[in-house]
């Protein structure tokens, strides 16, 4: 079965979704990611969906779930590179992914995770969201 590769990037994990997501792929990713966060002791998860052209409510919920799970495991999730059409679709579906942090591209997302890590080491209470 296809799996989406998860790359280790310092103490963050990088997931690039390059193919159309179907439901089993999404559940597999959720499981893989959870175990990798624990095994790699990751503090941040970066999901790049710039190649994703089609989303449905299931994928939207999956993103929310991943964020919730990583939060419990003390890792920040940043979704980057969402296309305008995808953003509009998600909003129209009523999924505004309030638990997920977002950034425009991988570079900014990485910077965001690094900032958070630096900030959380200094002061855990300094969390704006």
């Amino acid at each position, binding site marked *: 079965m296809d799996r989406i590769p998860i790359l280790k990037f310092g103490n963050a994990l990088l997931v690039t979704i390059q193919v159309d997501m179907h439901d089993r792929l999404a559940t597999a990713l959720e499981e893989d990611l959870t175990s990798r966060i624990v095994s790699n002791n990751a503090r941040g998860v970066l999901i790049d969906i710039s190649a994703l052209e089609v989303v449905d409510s299931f994928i939207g919920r999956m993103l929310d779930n991943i964020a919730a799970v990583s939060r419990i495991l003390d890792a920040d999730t940043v979704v980057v590179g969402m296309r305008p059409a995808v953003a509009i679709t998600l909003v129209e579906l009523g999924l*505004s992914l309030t638990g997920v942090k977002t950034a425009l591209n991988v570079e900014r997302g990485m910077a965001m995770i690094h900032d958070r890590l630096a900030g959380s080491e200094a002061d855990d209470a300094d969390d704006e969201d």
Partner: protein
Amino acid sequence: MAGQVGSDVASLVTRNEQNILPEWVELQKNAGTLHTGRISEGELQSQSRNFLHLLRDALTQSGTDTLAAPYEPAKAMLTELSRSRALQGFSPSETATFVFSLKQPLFNALNRDKTLSGEQIASTVWSLTVLLDELGLFTLEIFQKSREEIIVRQQREIAELSTPVVKLWEGILALPLIGTLDSQRTQVVMENLLQTIVDSEAEIAIIDITGVPTVDTLTAQHLLKTVAAARLMGADCLISGIRPQIAQTMVHLGVELNVISKASLADAFAVALRQTGRAVVKARRIEGFALPEKSGRQGA
């Protein structure tokens, strides 16, 4: 019977074309079709001749049943004519006159024709009236449709024109909204904003609603949708330009925006600059910073 009337009228038209055509064109001219100079007399002549021929062919083949297939060419021609007249700015009655004014020349020709009995003439007149009425109404319907298409197109153009996205600074966009926000416009605004966010890699978008006359629960929902979509793309949104009355109405309605809102665009811009790690300071306060000769003050 219908087939009989059809072939009767068709042969009548063939025999009397020399009389019917000039009479018809004359009537149309009297009705003012040419007055504004939107179409030439030659054009009117050829349109009339074409239609008369198409009508004759249709009458020969299927009598007075306008729903039959042989009427398609005549209807297609009416559609074309109606559409072009709608674009040229003809009034509905001027357009319908094209068909309705054909009645008189046809009836005159019937009266002059000696081959038909009185009874036959009466039934033919009735069938012809029904036929021309149907075609006239068809013309009007197409005219109305064309006008509606024009209106829809103009609406779309206005919507596109009225939603510019302005770049205020590196990474800071402003979206000055003017006019009422309905769902269709929100869609255009949202698409524009999100595309510009991608293109200019913006971090912050300021939605300025100074030009929005009223904010009700629906408008607020549209605004929130835009904000949520921008957030999904990784850009923060600020809302500015909420006028005092609107602020009061919003509170009365129980509308909550749940985003940073500022009274004026300038305030929102200051917040945006601060969030992106910039600040505006008076130049003379910075030591060792020489002022340019001509401009007194400059922001940094």
